[in-house]
């Protein structure tokens, strides 16, 4: 029996010691390699015509090129594949001259036919991000190659340069290699969407070497890139969902950059030598929406009473200071942002507004919120705040799908929601929040206000100063009358080892330009 026991114990000891035999090598990533720890579960397609999620578009931006690019401050368009362009007097037609000698990763030339093919392909496929083009270009025939080195795009409205760049700098407008697409087309998939989803048909600074779903994306620098080879030879995006595991990997040196830590973990690293935490504003909003179709919220006074009852500073504390408090629908750093912040918690004012509306006795309302941290806590805080003006809130913590179901179905009373700019122009926000006819947020909250006419006017306005004034006017109206209590402009936090340089996240995509990254 003793021998049996001894064997069993030996087995346990072996099991306990086995890790030592297969231990990982002490780590620090090589100097020409950048490893980014992030969740890549949202990458479902790398076809520019389909990619619409943060990480998908991040990868697409580095595999593909676009005709134009934005300046860092989003104030003007810069040359990309197009070296120059001219616009017609009515700003509806742009003609782009292409950069000579640019080649796809396959070795094929990037020419006007490729640009025409790519943009028309997006319109034919009509997948999630296609609206970014189809909202402004009526028909595929409005995109025409003129010879081999010029492309003419006719928009359905006047397009100030920033708006033109908003469309043509977007990843959906990336230029794909027509020869590769045609070669991989199949019956039932004439645009080779399935193939382009998983393969590289671009001319961008990086070549897609591999994408293993939910595991890793590997990019390799394109030696013949027209701007010159990027400094990081290889980039890995490693799927690490759990923040604590991501933190350990960063501290161990297995990853160079961590994209999704918790606020407390960022704070911990801020005070740790050898690590840097970057904090960047984003073009996203968090807001409380009130459905005007629910009778109490049809009153402007009631909506404003809600805005005055909310304790914005407390919400900032719940976010552990990872937000800026802002109240207008165009976020800070975007063109035409209005910095007004009229609402502070003021219960007297809020109660007076409730009295004015004849709602002194209050009412009941539901508040739908998703399980995403810390939204349920914010909902609880808002419930407490509104109880002070006799609005009894039933908080419904639901799956994001269910919250959206209510919101899109217009069956909600209140929801806590987010909006991120699809392109860096106030038109995107104004259309969503103020133009009922666009059937987005104003429509969902049943708020049909004459301000929509200003939205339609502003997007056509070519004069930059007048345009800015119009968007500020829209923001003021929405702030004072709209069914939204905007309470946060979230910040994007990224932690990295201190030898990583050139990481400067864009407020639009919340990601950063990999070509400017380097290591010391």
């Amino acid at each position: 029996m003793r021998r049996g026991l001894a064997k069993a114990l030996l087995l346990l000891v072996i099991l306990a010691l086995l890790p030592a035999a297969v231990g990982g090598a002490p780590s620090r990533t090589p100097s020409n390699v950048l490893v980014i720890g992030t969740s890549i579960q949202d990458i479902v397609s790398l076809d520019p015509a389909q990619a619409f999620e943060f990480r998908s578009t991040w990868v697409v931006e580095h595999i593909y090129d676009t005709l134009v690019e934005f300046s860092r401050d989003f104030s003007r368009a810069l040359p990309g594949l197009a070296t120059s362009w001219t616009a017609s007097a009515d700003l509806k037609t742009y003609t782009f001259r292409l950069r000579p000698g640019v080649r796809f990763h396959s070795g094929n030339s990037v020419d006007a036919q490729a640009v025409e093919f790519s943009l028309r392909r997006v319109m034919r496929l009509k997948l999630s991000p296609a609206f970014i083009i189809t909202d402004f270009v009526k028909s595929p025939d409005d995109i025409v190659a003129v010879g081999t080195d010029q492309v003419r795009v006719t928009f359905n409205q006047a397009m100030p340069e920033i708006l033109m760049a908003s469309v043509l700098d977007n990843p959906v407008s990336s230029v794909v290699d027509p020869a590769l697409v045609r070669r991989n087309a199949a019956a039932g998939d004439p645009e080779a969407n399935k193939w382009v989803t998983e393969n590289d048909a671009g001319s961008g600074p990086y070549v897609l070497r591999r994408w293993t779903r939910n595991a890793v994306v590997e990019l390799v620098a394109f030696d013949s890139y027209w701007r010159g080879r990027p400094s990081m030879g290889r980039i890995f995006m490693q799927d690490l969902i759990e923040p604590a595991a991501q933190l350990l990997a960063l501290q161990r040196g297995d990853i160079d950059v961590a994209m999704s830590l918790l606020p407390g973990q960022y704070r911990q690293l801020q005070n740790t030598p050898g690590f840097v935490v970057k904090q960047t504003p984003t073009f996203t909003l968090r807001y409380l929406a009130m459905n005007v179709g629910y009778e109490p919220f049809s009153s402007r006074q009631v909506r404003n009473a809600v805005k005055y009852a909310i304790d914005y500073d407390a919400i900032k504390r719940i976010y552990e200071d990872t937000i800026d408090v802002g109240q207008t629908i165009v976020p800070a750093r975007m063109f035409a942002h209005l910095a007004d912040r009229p609402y502070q918690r003021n219960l007297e004012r809020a109660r007076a507004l409730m009295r004015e509306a004849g709602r002194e006795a209050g009412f009941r309302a539901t508040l739908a919120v998703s399980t995403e941290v810390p939204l349920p806590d914010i909902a609880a805080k808002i419930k407490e705040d509104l109880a002070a003006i006799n609005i009894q809130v039933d908080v419904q913590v639901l799956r994001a799908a269910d919250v959206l179901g209510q919101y899109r179905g217009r069956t909600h009373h209140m929801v806590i929601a987010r909006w991120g700019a699809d392109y860096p122009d106030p038109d995107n926000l104004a259309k969503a929040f103020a133009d009922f006819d666009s059937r987005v947020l104003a429509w969902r909250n049943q708020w049909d206000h004459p301000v929509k006419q200003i939205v339609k006017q502003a997007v056509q306005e070519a004069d930059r100063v007048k345009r800015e004034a119009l968007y500020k006017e829209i923001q003021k109206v929405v702030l004072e009358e709209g069914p939204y209590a905007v309470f946060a402009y979230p910040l994007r936090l990224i932690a990295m080892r201190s030898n990583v340089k050139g990481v400067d996240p864009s407020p639009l995509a919340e990601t950063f330009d990999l070509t400017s990254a380097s290591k010391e």
Partner: protein
Amino acid sequence: MWAYIVRRLALASLAVAGVLVIVFFLSHIIPGDPVAAILGPQAPNDVIEDLRRRYGLDRPVPEQFYRFVARLVRGDLGDSLATHRPVIRDLREFLPATIELATAAILIGVLAGLSVGVISAVARGRPLDHAVRFLSLIGLSMPVFWLGLILLFIFYFKLNLVPGPGQLDIFLSRPPTVTGLITVDALLARDFATLWNALGHLLLPAVVLGSHALVGIARITRASMLEVLGQDYVKVARAKGLSERTVVLKHALRNGLLPIITVIGIYYGGLLEGAVLTETVFAWPGLGRYATSAILSQDFAAIMGVTILIALVFSLANLLVDLAYGFLNPKIRYE
């Protein structure tokens, strides 16, 4: 016995069909808009309508069910709304990682659980028994998520004994796919560097995932062994002068295995579907995460695909357990 197996398989098919009907209608009754959920808050209405039409989600639920069954008969599980790919392809991609993890976990659970259970039973009432039972209690009450992070902290971060999260070092490429199981494929390709690396990555999540099975099997083993060790035939064996080792391992353990085999089968099925937390902590690209995201976004086709798979695994595990009874106890006859 073959007639028995055929009958059991037929019954299992009925059970799977029943599960399918229930899950299909339940998942469609739950409120929420899967297309809107997948496309996010900013997708335009016409894009949503278009996708809804494309996936047949604009049809009445009974018609959707009819279409689902018609496709299923042809071996087509439909396309996932989230990944835009055939569900069968997703399952083929994500299932092997979970099978690899769950199999390693159950092996650890069975080997260690049986050993601990037997030791505890033999040493009944002694300090060793108390220590084992105390540790079992701790093991059973420790959340998998927390255990995973603690082990990562100690063995990966502090001691540098195991590699970090993930199924394979990112600098290594997967071996050519034959079975989809990285360890097996690496072995078939005689790529021992990759095999070694994959085993290193597998170890910690397997220990974490197998810990609950280990404790459960140890407890059942102890209880079963205590019952058997008190039987007359064990006393007779001892009286015959057989060594204690022979008495415990040949006479007692074999007879005590029946209830243990039952829980092993159940645990294995549970590990396959319940690996989600371990997969999250260890960034394991498996079925658990796929299933969770499918459920959260109401990706009907993916939910049904995972349901069929899990139902089949449970049915097969049960059948294997029943067949194992006959092997362990010749008195059992299959009729």
